């Protein structure tokens, strides 16, 4: 039966295994090297940053660029950080509610026009943002939201993809508990709050993490609707730094690392979940 299968300690097997590891580690280095290079570069002083050719590692590591960014009053970092956190968290809370609520109704209720309504949701998934960014911008101007953080939050109240994902999850829940709750006199909204929501920890967490990350990293829409420095989100601040501080690249590097850090921090704890979610979402 086992003829032809390489034995665990045969030469071919060991060579194959170590070959696999060598290629995988080369990939690993290629992935991490760019990150690593700007982290060590951000610790160089101005003279070392200007040096040609540069050394890979700083001779006298310094945290001065980080300190400048964090303490200089001319740089609205704290305000911009607050903006990013405020917008990201607001969008997480609102999206989780609208997605789970609409997903619940689509999954568990029958009503006229349901297919049509769901079709509208699918349309949103199919329309790329770039196609509607001009009318969206004009709409935000008409609503008086331009240069306001609300311009990042209000148009994103409803997330079609989130509704789709939640509907799939809730459809798989058994209906008996809901019927039992109805017998006990629960309202339909009460069923959502007391029966459905408590079972939705994992999908809500996944959707929440994704909404947070994509909002935190979002660049194009904030670039279009925000203009004043104190309204900027973190990615806009980094770009502003890059155009302003051509002479002081250390600040730009430190700013980009500060942009990456919160996401990396979340990722360290939730990586398995995030990767699994990304995998399964592609096929639903």
């Amino acid at each position, binding site marked *: 039966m086992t003829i032809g299968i390489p034995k665990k300690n045969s030469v071919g097997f060991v060579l194959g295994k170590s070959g696999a590891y060598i290629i995988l580690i080369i990939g690993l280095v290629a992935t991490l090297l760019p990150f690593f290079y700007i982290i060590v570069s951000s610790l160089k002083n101005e003279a070392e940053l200007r040096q040609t050719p540069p050394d890979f590692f700083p001779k006298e590591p310094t945290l001065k660029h980080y300190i400048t960014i964090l303490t200089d009053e001319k740089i609205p970092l704290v305000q911009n950080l607050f903006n990013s956190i405020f917008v990201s968290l607001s969008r997480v809370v609102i999206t989780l509610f609208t997605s789970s*609520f609409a997903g619940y*109704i*689509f999954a568990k*209720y029958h*009503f006229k026009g349901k297919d049509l309504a769901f079709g509208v949701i699918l349309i949103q998934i199919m329309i790329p943002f770039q*196609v*509607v960014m001009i009318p969206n911008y004009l709409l935000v101007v008409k609503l008086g939201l331009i240069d306001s953080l609300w311009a990042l939050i209000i*148009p994103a109240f409803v997330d079609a993809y989130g509704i789709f994902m939640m509907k799939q999850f809730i459809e798989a829940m058994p209906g008996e508990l809901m019927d039992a709750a109805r017998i006990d006199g629960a309202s339909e909204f009460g069923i959502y709050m007391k029966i459905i929501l408590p079972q939705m920890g994992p999908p809500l967490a996944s959707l929440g993490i994704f909404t947070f990350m994509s909002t935190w990293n979002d660049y194009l829409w904030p670039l279009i609707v925000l203009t004043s420095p104190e309204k900027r989100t973190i990615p806009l601040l980094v770009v502003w730094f890059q155009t302003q501080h051509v002479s002081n690249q250390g600040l730009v590097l430190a700013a980009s690392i500060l942009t990456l850090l919160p996401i990396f921090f979340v*990722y360290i704890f939730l990586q398995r979940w995030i990767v699994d979610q990304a995998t399964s979402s592609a096929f639903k």
Partner: protein
Amino acid sequence: MAINTFFKKEIISDSGKLMAKQRRFAYTGIVPILLYMGLFTLFPILWAVIMSFFSYTPIREGSWFLGLGGQNPFVGIKNYIELFSGTGKPAEVFRLAVKNTFLFTALVLPMNLIITLPLAVLLESIGERFKTLFRAIYFLPTISSSVALVIIWSYMYAPGWGLLSIMFKTIGLVPPKSWLQDPNTIYLGVPLAMLCVVVAHVWQDFGYNLVIFVAALQSIPKTLREAARVDGANLWQEFWLVVVPLLSRTVMLTSVLTVISSLQVFVIFQLLTRGGPQNQTQTMVLSIYENAFRFANNLGLSSAMSMILFIIILILTVTQFRILRTEWEY
């Protein structure tokens, strides 16, 4: 139990009333959400379609209807004709942008697959603990801020002292004088700057397809691959004759997704090369953005550009749904 059944009977006899109550609840919940989607999704798409048939600039006086008409006249399909064959600067740049967008996509897709497919097979073959670790690290660029990644790559590509120039010198090659700004270095019809953007983008994006392929490989029943080995297939044959055919649907689907997302890449083009040198990395999305928001040109023309992008993506999305609908069993 008995009491429950009793109540259930009552509910069934009363089901008309109950159904009405549930329907009312469903409508109360769905109608606001649909109105919202109407305002922020359907209305903008219609607006974009209509605007593409007008010559429209927001500062000019128009009618009550979306500011169109009046000094923003209806021009029929003139915007589209201009884009296809006109001699205006925006139209000329846009035609170049369409070509560049397709070139970018045509380079990204094979490069992505050449990296992710073998890497996924290797990743799938190693122990569980290392697999999780490697997968997590490969996925790191995917979750990172594109803006920060552009800063990273502007350091990689810095002329003379960037990491890539240093690496070239270390292994005895002569690095290009300028990675991103020299319009005259062209390999097999691909400008160097475009090649650099492709590499940076694939680096940023490959983790996504990789984890999908790893998951797809895991779902292939082990018995199939073992059967091939029993029949005397070596690893190479096993890969081409068993894994690839079983993976073909996943590969097709991720390819379509990769193409759709490549057509929409913006940040890296706007920040790393700014469309240059000499518009060699100008893309459709960058054109739409620059015409509408940087030069504040005729928004009707920009909307016509978005419509062309939309039609291309729509065709691909329909293809994607077609693939998703095909039944598949091992």
